[in-house]
């Protein structure tokens, strides 16, 4: 039971958005899909949800190909910032339409959430502000109980209070109705505590696919005066390094040896967002 992406490539004209992607999202758990703008995250989601076809390769949900397959597609709900609802559709009618397609859609819960978020259900979806449009989509995603939930930039335009509420509700939902959730977001710091698996995509290639804990324990940071850091990193596997004034921070693979650390340097553990930035800087400089 999983979403399996096998040898998927996608080109838009001369631009290669995805390049022979192979990744598996196992049943259960919350995964984070991270990448810079244009890395191919949304393209990957769109291919999983069969909104676009890959140039080559295939996507399987529980062993069934998703290509024009209602049974497989019915197990997935994709939230994205693109509005696929009719221009004149109102929020309440959208909730009712959702219940037509998903038998487990909790209409009562959706209406409760709309009240909690302050979303007026008599408003047209097309007239909602960016934040409320995100809230509308979040409510549907939280109320529809499918085995696989794809959340593409779920908190786009949301204020800090509503983002916090969303993360709490997501964990609450996961506790009540365990499912596979894949979140794609640029706010890595905010979802860091939520996720189990980390998939990092760059220029259409998956460059990391590890559990969050494994990834964070796979390296460490060393910071201090630039000269000392440079001296320390000689012969050690440096992922990336950043200088600010006379100070420098280097990300290294492996584990620091306590006795080995010279005085004046400080060792720290990876923080997911920091790791991502360092990784991108490192990859970018290659």
């Amino acid at each position, binding site marked *: 039971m999983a979403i399996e992406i096998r040898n998927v490539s996608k080109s838009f004209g001369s631009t290669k958005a995805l390049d022979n992607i192979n990744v598996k999202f196992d049943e259960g758990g919350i995964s984070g899909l991270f990448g810079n703008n244009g890395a191919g995250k949304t393209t990957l989601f769109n291919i999983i949800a069969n*909104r676009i076809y890959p140039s080559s390769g295939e996507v399987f949900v529980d062993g069934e190909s998703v290509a024009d*397959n*209602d049974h497989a597609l*019915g197990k997935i709900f994709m939230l994205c910032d693109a*509005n*696929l*609802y009719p221009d004149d559709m109102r929020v309440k009618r959208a909730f009712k*339409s959702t219940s037509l*397609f998903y038998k487990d859609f909790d209409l009562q819960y959706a209406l409760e959430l709309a009240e909690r978020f302050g979303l007026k259900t008599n408003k047209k979806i097309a007239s909602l502000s960016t934040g409320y449009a995100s809230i509308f989509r979040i409510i549907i995603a939280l109320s529809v109980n499918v085995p696989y939930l794809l959340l593409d930039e779920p908190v786009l335009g949301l204020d800090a209070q509503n983002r916090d509420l969303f993360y709490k509700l997501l964990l609450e939902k996961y506790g009540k109705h365990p499912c596979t959730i894949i979140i794609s977001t640029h706010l890595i710091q905010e979802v860091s505590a939520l996720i189990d698996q980390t998939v990092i995509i760059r220029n259409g290639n998956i460059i990391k696919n590890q559990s969050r804990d494994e990834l964070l324990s796979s390296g460490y940071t060393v910071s201090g005066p630039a000269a000392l850091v440079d001296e320390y990193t000689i012969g050690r596997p440096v992922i990336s390094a950043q200088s600010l004034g006379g100070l420098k921070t280097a990300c290294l693979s492996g584990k620091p040896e306590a006795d080995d650390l010279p005085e004046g340097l400080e060792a720290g553990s990876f923080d997911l967002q920091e790791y991502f930035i360092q990784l991108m800087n490192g990859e970018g400089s290659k």
Partner: protein
Amino acid sequence: MSRINFMPAFKYCFRSMITGVAVFLLIMLVITAVVAVTANISIRINGDITLMFNAFETAAAIAAFVIGIVSIREDMRLLIQYGIGRRTAFLSEISVAIVIMMIMSVAGILIASLGSSMAVDNKNVIINTLYSFFYPQRVESLSPVIVFLETLIWNFMIYLSAFFTGLFISLMFYRLSKIWKVVAAIGLPVLLLVILPTVLVKNLPGLVIYIFSIDSFSDPWTGIRIGLGNSIVFGLGSWLLIRRAPIKPALK
């Protein structure tokens, strides 16, 4: 293995289409009633008038064409959002169209009958179906049941043909790039109205003469066959356009 989730898609498409059609039917009913009442008043004032009225079929064909253009994109987007594949979305769309066009065909006959019954008993005031105006000999020579059924099928094929034409044009413009949209917008009318007639007249004059001949117009089944052929061609063309179409969001 591929299983389809037809019923929810059908229900949704039906609900989204029927509201507009109901409003259209109501407007046509009101127009026909107004014409009948006006004819009655005119006869009382002027003594005698001559009136032959029919508006439904032409208006319904235009409505069917517009439904074909506007419904598919919106329905398709929502169905894909809710995990329905393109094949089911297309099947549900054309199934609903078939039901809706049948409803419109029946409604057209009923509205014409109602208008006719509301008009005073005057042989110069005729409110009837387009079929009755086109094929008066058949109306007189055939049994009312056959006339009813032929009218129903004739109307239905006109509407279905108009629907599929609209559907095809909508999907063609959906798939084309900007430059090709301009080319198609100019090229298609030129092809259909200038090049095709010229080629047909030059190479198949017999067919053109037949289509526009008395023989053709004397038999409603010619029109029905043309409508069916048109529906099949544009229906298949629409499927080819939609089967791997990327889903584009609505413009906000």
